[in-house]
């Protein structure tokens, strides 16, 4: 096979495709966005049940605890609405959006599905059904205001929050008491950056060059979920209010300070290991761990003898902790939008209490929070107090995936010793170029 003939072949392909390109036949698109206003307004009374049996598909994150918990809730639903049959499919967490996105491309998405901060991305492509007509004001007001942040794109609501999630710092109780560290119990007493650094340095144990115990770590290391609070604690933002510009925000004085503080964890102070240490917290090689509320049940079941205390996130000029969670969306291509809405409404309203108590996530509805005194007690209160007062949401831009990758690259590069100012400036440039389009 000669190189020249290979080149001829390649050019043949290109010519063939060019000639096809000129025809520009549009490929079949997914069903058009519901443009006529929907007739049925949501209400708390049981909606009119149609006689015909309807099949709904429901995609959620695969998890050994979550899927059975959701199945139990869906079983309740099917008892109440015997004509609606719901099939739960699930996808592994790290490939969830690969799978959901492909199903949109193929025009056969699940009727209802979990969607997170990427709701705006899906909505911008017209694959989600707008839900404003169905969500009553009373329903909307029952939620903590922050819960809706991820679900709205250009003023239209495309999903309903299923629950909330936020973080705290898990402290190895034994190590803290050995070192005589006083643990804060509420946001008021939360450590400042300096206090936190002192605590982390005290807890770090070294022997020669080797570090036996690292003072701090994060369950979701080196990404926006864990690191965005640093910006907000220092009263900086990463993007302009319309989410199209990063220069002057992410690389503002306050932003650079936040990233310099973070960089010092890895480079000068060495209180955090750049790479995660699997199971390092319960095994005693990590003294503190920033982790979501849902990490607690897992620790308790996997390491029953391990003692830990949860304290609020550190603060600087203000408090700040990332919140968010999964929301339920309906595909605009769904053949059964009415029944899909009935299911969404049931899962987010009627079943909210059962779902949050079985899944380990946090409640997002005020009525449920008030009805359950446990949420006012330790450990729940640590999270709930921050959820209500210090909530930070990731930017709901249709280009969130790009933002995520670029932000992650920034914090990774700083953690391995990159110059903070130049890395942040480079990041601002990259974000401007993409988000500004």
């Amino acid at each position, binding site marked *: 096979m000669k190189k020249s003939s290979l*080149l001829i072949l390649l050019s043949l392909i290109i010519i063939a495709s060019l000639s096809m390109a000129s025809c520009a036949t549009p490929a079949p698109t997914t069903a058009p966005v519901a443009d006529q206003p929907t007739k049925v307004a949501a209400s708390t009374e049981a909606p009119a049940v149609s006689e015909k049996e309807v099949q709904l598909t429901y995609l959620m994150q695969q998890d050994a605890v979550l899927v059975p918990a959701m199945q139990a809730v869906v079983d309740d639903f099917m008892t109440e609405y015997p004509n609606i049959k719901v099939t739960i499919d699930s996808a592994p967490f790290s490939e969830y959006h*690969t799978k959901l996105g*492909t199903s949109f491309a193929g025009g056969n998405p699940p009727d209802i599905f979990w969607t997170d901060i990427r709701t705006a991305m899906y909505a911008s*492509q*017209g694959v989600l059904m707008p839900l404003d007509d169905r969500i009553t004001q009373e329903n909307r007001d029952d939620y903590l205001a922050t819960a809706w942040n991820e679900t709205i794109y250009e003023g239209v609501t495309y999903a309903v929050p299923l629950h909330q999630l936020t973080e705290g710092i898990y402290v190895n109780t034994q190590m803290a008491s050995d070192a005589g560290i006083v643990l804060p119990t509420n946001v008021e007493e939360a450590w400042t950056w300096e206090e936190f650094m002192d605590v982390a340095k005290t807890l770090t144990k070294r022997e020669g060059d080797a570090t036996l115990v*690292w003072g701090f770590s994060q369950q979701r290391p080196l990404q926006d979920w864990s690191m965005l609070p640093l910006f907000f604690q220092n009263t900086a933002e990463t993007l302009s209010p319309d989410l199209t510009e990063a220069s002057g925000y992410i690389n503002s004085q306050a932003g650079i300070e936040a990233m310099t503080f973070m960089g010092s964890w890895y480079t000068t102070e060495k209180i955090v290991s750049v*790479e995660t*240490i699997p199971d390092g917290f319960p095994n005693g090689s990590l003294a503190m761990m920033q982790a979501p509320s849902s990490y607690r049940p897992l620790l308790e079941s996997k390491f029953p003898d391990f003692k830990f205390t949860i304290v609020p996130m550190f603060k600087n000029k203000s408090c700040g902790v990332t919140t968010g969670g999964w929301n339920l969306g309906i595909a605009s291509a769904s053949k059964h939008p009415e029944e899909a809405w009935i299911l969404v409404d049931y899962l987010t309203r009627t079943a909210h209490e059962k779902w949050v108590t079985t899944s380990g996530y946090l409640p997002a509805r005020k009525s449920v929070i008030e009805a359950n005194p446990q949420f006012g007690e330790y450990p729940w209160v640590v999270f709930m107090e921050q959820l209500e007062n210090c909530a930070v949401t990731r930017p709901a831009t249709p280009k969130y995936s790009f933002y995520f990758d670029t932000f992650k690259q920034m914090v*990774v590069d700083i*953690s391995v010793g990159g110059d903070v100012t130049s890395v942040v400036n480079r990041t601002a440039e990259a974000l401007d170029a993409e988000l500004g389009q």
Partner: protein
Amino acid sequence: MPKVQKLQREEIKSSFLLLLPATIGLLIFSFYPIVSAARTSFFDVSALSLKYDPIGFTNYIKAFQDKIFLISIGNTLFYTIAVVLLQILVALIFALILKNAFFGVGFFRTAFFLPAVTSLVVVSTIWKIFYHTDVGIFNSVLQTIGLAPVGWLTDANVVLMSIVIVGVWKEVGFSMLVLLGGLNIIPADYYEAAAIDGASGWTGFWKITLPLLRRSLLFVTVLATINAIKVFIPIYVITNGGPMNSTQTLVFNIYRNVFGYYKLGYGSALSMILLLIVGMVVGLQFRLLRSDVEY
């Protein structure tokens, strides 16, 4: 002569029948998607909505202004050259050692081939654990013998080499197997004749083994190159392209654009550039390693 013509016709007819099923399969499941991707590369398309907006060569122009894409070409070429050279060299050494039967030879052949038949996702996860700067087994061993730890996954100058090691470890067994086959069809009397002429082992290797191994070498080189240029899973599992873009590679970049940002048109344009690069490299290899040897 009619007889010859008839024979030729029969040969062509047989070839047609023999090739038909594979050709149909490839047409439907490989060429159609490739042509479709080639076509898509001239559109602005979101993979979510599949609305095609013709934009001519814009995707290609954008590609060459995309810093990360240009970095990824460099990284991919470095990775490919390093993996292919090391893989072929190590495979050749293994094949020469394991050519003859001796006690335990089957065990060693199996050991070296084992990585080639295990899941890349699984082995990448395990290598990631081994490479850990602070608690990984490699640095533990280095420290135990008194050497300084290496930032396998944190030092931007080292990380791509760490991925090269995984690539070589995974693929070398397959190359070894093919080269073993190539070595074993070289008739032993060639060496005997050479020995009578007083040729030493090295001369035998250069004058007999290597030339007669050319076809096998071409084959493993081409396959190794195509696989190496398409490196994706170890990057996806171990490094995600970082730190400092040091492990950004072409296919990782394509995956990100298609499945991360749903830029199907742009991702397709990048793939066509990739196709051009692989095509040129492979064409060059065919030219350099062409072999006309018949036994």
